[in-house]
């Protein structure tokens, strides 16, 4: 590795991934820029359709098909992953950057024994003998806390539980000691107790190996205690980016605020009315003009429907794309104005109503 502690390990610049569909151009990822340093953990949070999975797959060059257009840069160790020939990419996969996928049943091969799936990788990249590879594979299975690793080595994926299968995928991902690990919703298919174990395991392995990690999830609870920095995505763009502490304590984008409010929490009494977000995420082909969150935003003003807010960064490195950031005077004024005008999205948050469809043509401040 040539990069030092100060240089980012991964630097993504203006990444765009568009899919050309019959219905039009789907802008799944639309201009994403971020840096990740060695040994750090980055959380990418967003609802389904926000582009978080496409983003990580674009960096890994896993978006195949003739209708995909990817532009921008993803510099890893001085190389631009997006323009690297595929045969060089295969040397990066597994050895330098690895990935853990959401569903361990579909990411493992159902007709190949666990042992071969773990050691295949090691034999190819580290050119070990069959015996050495077997020993290493069993070691790896032990390191991800699989009980009776020898037995698991000669089992098929269907013989293991979901949590154990996900441990196997992690063992495979860690096999060649990558610098960077993408974990794409690694625990979404799992029970809370198993999720807790898997996340702890990832964190433990990460600190042992001094590996950087990108943790993609829809659950703000998952990233809360486990990441250094968080990116919140909405409709293919970054709407807020800051240190984990800042995101939670000093939330500045209305979408992040709304997400945090809409989660039921165990320290609230039963039957607490949840602050639901009105409407639903926009169609990525026919995006609203201006800010993409404006139709659902309780603070939206005329400007929000017309002009797209840029991502502005404060001194502390807290980036937000919003004209009326949460916690500012302008934000409070916008809220009062919308409330007085009876704008549906504002009322929905104020009174906890359920509003499914917010008309897109809602233009001038409600009414």
């Amino acid at each position, binding site marked *: 590795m040539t990069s030092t502690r100060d240089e980012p390990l991964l630097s993504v610049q203006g990444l765009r991934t568009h899919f050309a569909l019959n219905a039009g151009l789907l802008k799944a990822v639309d201009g994403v820029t971020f840096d990740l340093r060695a040994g750090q953990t980055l959380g990418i949070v967003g609802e389904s359709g926000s582009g978080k999975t496409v983003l990580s797959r674009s960096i890994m060059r896993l978006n195949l098909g003739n209708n995909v257009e990817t532009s921008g840069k993803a510099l890893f160790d001085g190389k631009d992953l997006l323009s690297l020939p595929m045969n060089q990419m295969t040397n990066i996969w597994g050895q330098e950057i690895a990935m853990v996928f959401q569903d361990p049943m579909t990411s493992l091969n159902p007709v190949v024994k666990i042992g071969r799936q773990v050691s295949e990788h090691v034999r190819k990249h580290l050119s070990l003998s069959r015996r050495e590879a077997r020993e290493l594979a069993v070691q790896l299975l032990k390191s991800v806390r699989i009980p009776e690793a020898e037995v698991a080595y000669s089992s098929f994926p269907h013989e293991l539980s979901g949590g154990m299968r996900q441990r196997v995928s992690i063992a495979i991902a860690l096999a060649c000691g990558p610098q960077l690990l993408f974990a794409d919703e690694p625990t979404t298919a799992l029970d809370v107790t198993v*999720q*807790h174990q898997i996340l*702890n395991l990832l964190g433990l392995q990460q600190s042992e190996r001094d590996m950087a990690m990108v943790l993609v999830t829809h659950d703000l609870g998952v990233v809360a205690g486990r990441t250094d920095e968080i990116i919140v995505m909405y409709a293919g763009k970054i709407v807020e980016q800051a240190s*984990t502490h800042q995101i939670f304590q000093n939330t500045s984008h209305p979408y992040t605020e709304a997400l945090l409010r*809409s989660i039921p929490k*165990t320290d609230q009494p039963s039957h607490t009315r949840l602050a639901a977000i009105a409407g639903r995420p926009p169609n990525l082909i026919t995006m609203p003009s201006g800010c993409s969150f404006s139709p659902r935003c309780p603070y939206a003003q005329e400007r929000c429907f017309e002009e797209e807010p840029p991502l502005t960064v404060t001194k502390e490195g807290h980036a937000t794309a919003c004209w009326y950031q949460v916690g500012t005077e302008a934000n409070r004024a916008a809220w009062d104005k919308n409330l007085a005008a009876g704008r549906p999205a504002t009322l929905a948050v104020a009174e906890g109503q359920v509003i499914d469809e917010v008309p897109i043509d809602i233009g001038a401040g409600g009414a």
Partner: protein
Amino acid sequence: MAGSGKAHLRDPGDVLMRAEDLVIEFPISRGRVVNAVSGVSLDVKQGETLGLVGESGCGKSTTAKSLIQLPPPTSGTVSYQGTELTSLDDEALRNARTDLQMIFQDPISSLNPRRKIGDVVAEPLRVWGPRNDAEQTELVDAMLEAVGIDPALARDKRPHEFSGGQCQRISIARALVLNPQVIICDEPVSALDVSVQAQILNMLEDLKSQYGLTLVFIAHDLAVVKNISDRVAVMYLGKLCEVSESNDLYATPAHPYTELLLGSSPVPDPTSAVDITMVEEGDVPSPIDPPSGCRFRTRCAYATERCAQEEPMMREVSQDHFVACHHPLVSVAETAEVSA
């Protein structure tokens, strides 16, 4: 933990639905059986929401489905408004089931992709409701409106034209159209995004008060269950661990398994420290050959000899708070009537 007993059941006269000693076994090869549910007793009062929570494979869905005899339990009884459902013949059961409806986890696969929304929601009426087409349409429209779907726009569309959240609203409309008493919600929000999840949870609360519904709500997310439930039952490997009024359960969990679940549940607060060194090897034991005594003992930090030999029974630890554990986490001094 994970014990039997009926101490937590209330007076049969006060409850709408009562299940006693439910046992559900599924035969597999070589004469073995999967012990999906082993002696679970539950009751629900009129207008109450009962939350059922536990890991996958603990039998929470199987228990809830057996309440509407889908399938009937291997043994045990289910009474609804004083009628014993397990002894009804097919026709009488079909009649009784109009009062008991269900909402499923995956909203998209629970709607027939080839049928129009209007027909999907009208289907129960075609079987049970008024024969008159105009009346049916009126009822369907009213239901769709009640769940926040514009009937004029939706009636002639098919499920693929709707998002997951909207499909779940449509399934709820279908469940409500026969004006049922009890709705069994089998993880209705697990497949939805958090913002949509909040909309559906709020809506279920509204519909519940509007139509006087009684809910049995299954989920694996503890915060979701707490939000919607009046009373929560925690299940593990086919047995009940703890039953309590929901605020009390979360404030003072008495069962080690409840404590484990609460400790594992992710908290959206970066200041709550996560101890990443806690990586246990344990896995849920197989329901084909469950552990003796307390079924949770293999994963329990407090397990002793006694837990392997003797199955704990449900007992009251405080007002309306019951636990099946030999070593509950709350002071046992309160449980005056219990002799060791």
